[in-house]
């Protein structure tokens, strides 16, 4: 029996529904954990609808627990639980609950790291040590952020509801940012080994859930497409010796065809919707990269021009320079980088180094590689930069 798989798939949904039933995140987590502990003892084979079983059991456990406690608050919560109007006999997870919980976890009144940790804990069911390992921060720090965030949700009465349509433009971006950051942290972790698959898969799982819950939000579909198209190339991204392989050198037969097809279909759906946004445009760029035997760089550059209008950030300008180099040559690309300022970001000197090397300006390229190597925090990336540097003429 795959209890781990069921746990990963159902934990967030069940917690979300219990938060609504109990009105308290801490109680909801305890109840769901209790129910999984019971499942571990009782299930020989999982019931046909494991989520509903967990929610029902968790709810009963919560009532037992509240009855043992005699505080006023507990009695109030129990009253809430026993008087759910028009309630079906078996209560299953309600999908809207999960959406409510995502918006609560990613509320702008919470600090970005707390948003991410809380999302992974409550919706992904990740344990504190797992989150701490993923972000290379002490467990105590993660635990403290989560406790503080839950306390603020309760004390400040951060609501548990899906924002109204007119609030979405302000409330959706932090949700998308959190999912993107979770994915990105897994894809190029800030230090140590390059790929932390679990985080990538969790980000994709949550993005899929979000896309199922908000199928008419083009940026949600755009984010999902973007993550799928990056994930699809993972098998080709690292070579046999664990070294980084650039897009141009990747063995395209290793790419995940199914993920690419799914990503392309989503991008086409976004194009038909014709309400472009930064995630959709980035997804489209990755669709071009994964379409046919080689990248159509003119199309990529046109998309970067569009992206720069939507999101005029230095990182976009840096990525656009790579496309400029392919279409108009390295000299012009280098010129566009002159106005780009990204202190401490290793990919700026790394990109300059590549362009200088292509122009035969080896001494300057070497200095730029040195700068990039000093700034890179990821072992695999650092090794990659050292290899490139060693190829320069002396």
């Amino acid at each position, binding site marked *: 029996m795959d209890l781990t798989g069921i746990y990963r798939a159902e934990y967030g949904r069940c917690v979300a529904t219990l938060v609504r039933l109990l009105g308290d995140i801490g109680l909801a987590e305890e109840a769901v954990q209790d129910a999984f502990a019971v499942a571990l003892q009782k299930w020989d084979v999982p019931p046909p609808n494991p989520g509903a079983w967990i929610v029902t059991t968790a709810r009963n456990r919560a009532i037992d627990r509240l009855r043992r406690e005699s505080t*006023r608050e507990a009695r109030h919560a129990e009253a809430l639980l026993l008087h759910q109007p028009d309630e079906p006999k078996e209560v299953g997870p309600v999908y809207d609950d999960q959406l409510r919980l995502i918006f609560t976890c990613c*509320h702008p*009144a919470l600090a970005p790291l707390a948003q991410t940790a809380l999302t992974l804990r409550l919706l992904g069911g990740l344990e504190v040590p797992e989150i701490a390992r993923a972000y290379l921060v002490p467990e105590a720090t993660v635990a403290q952020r989560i406790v503080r965030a839950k306390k603020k949700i309760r*004390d*400040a*009465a*951060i*609501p548990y509801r899906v*924002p109204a349509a007119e*609030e979405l433009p302000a409330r959706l971006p932090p949700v998308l940012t959190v999912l993107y950051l979770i994915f990105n942290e897994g894809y190029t972790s800030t230090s140590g080994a390059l790929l932390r698959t679990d985080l990538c898969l969790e980000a994709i799982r949550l993005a899929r859930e979000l896309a199922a819950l908000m199928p008419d939000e083009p940026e949600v579909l755009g984010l999902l497409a973007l993550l799928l198209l990056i994930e699809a190339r993972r098998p080709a991204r690292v070579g046999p010796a664990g070294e980084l392989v650039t897009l141009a050198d990747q063995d395209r037969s290793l790419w995940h065809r199914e993920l690419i097809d799914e990503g392309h279909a989503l991008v086409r759906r976004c194009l038909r919707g014709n309400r472009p946004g930064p995630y959709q445009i980035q997804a489209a760029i990755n669709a071009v990269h994964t379409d046919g035997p080689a990248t159509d760089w003119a199309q990529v550059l046109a998309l970067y021009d569009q992206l720069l209008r939507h999101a005029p950030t230095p990182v976009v300008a840096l990525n656009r320079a790579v496309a400029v180099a392919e279409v108009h040559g390295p000299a012009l690309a280098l010129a566009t980088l002159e106005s780009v300022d990204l202190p401490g970001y290793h990919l700026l000197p790394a990109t300059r180094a590549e362009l200088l090397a292509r122009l035969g300006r080896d001494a300057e390229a070497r200095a730029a590689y040195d700068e990039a190597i000093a700034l890179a925090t990821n072992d695999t990336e650092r090794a990659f930069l050292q290899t490139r540097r060693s190829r320069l003429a002396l």
Partner: protein
Amino acid sequence: MKQYMLSVHSVEGAPTPTDEEMQTAFAQVDKINNELRTAGAWVFGGGLLPPDSATVVRVDSGSTTVTDGPFAETKEQLGGFWVIRCEDLDQALAWAGKCAQACMNPVEVRPFQDED
């Protein structure tokens, strides 16, 4: 219902608003106050005179001392505040947005302890 304090902090050394700007802010704040009352969210509110008008009272081992000046010698000082009543933080933040626009200053939102 929760209660929140919406406080306005003035920063020492920030350019002093012109009389015209002050008049605009007063008029806008009046309008917000009426909106708050109509919505049933108003509890209390007002603007404070500058920190140099403040006096601190301390009680130590039963004896009371009175000293001149604000409690904390910081650059940011409380300039005024509202106390509002509403359902949740999102409603409080929506009011805070209107208040910040009206008084032309950042507004800090803090929940009160629950009464029970």
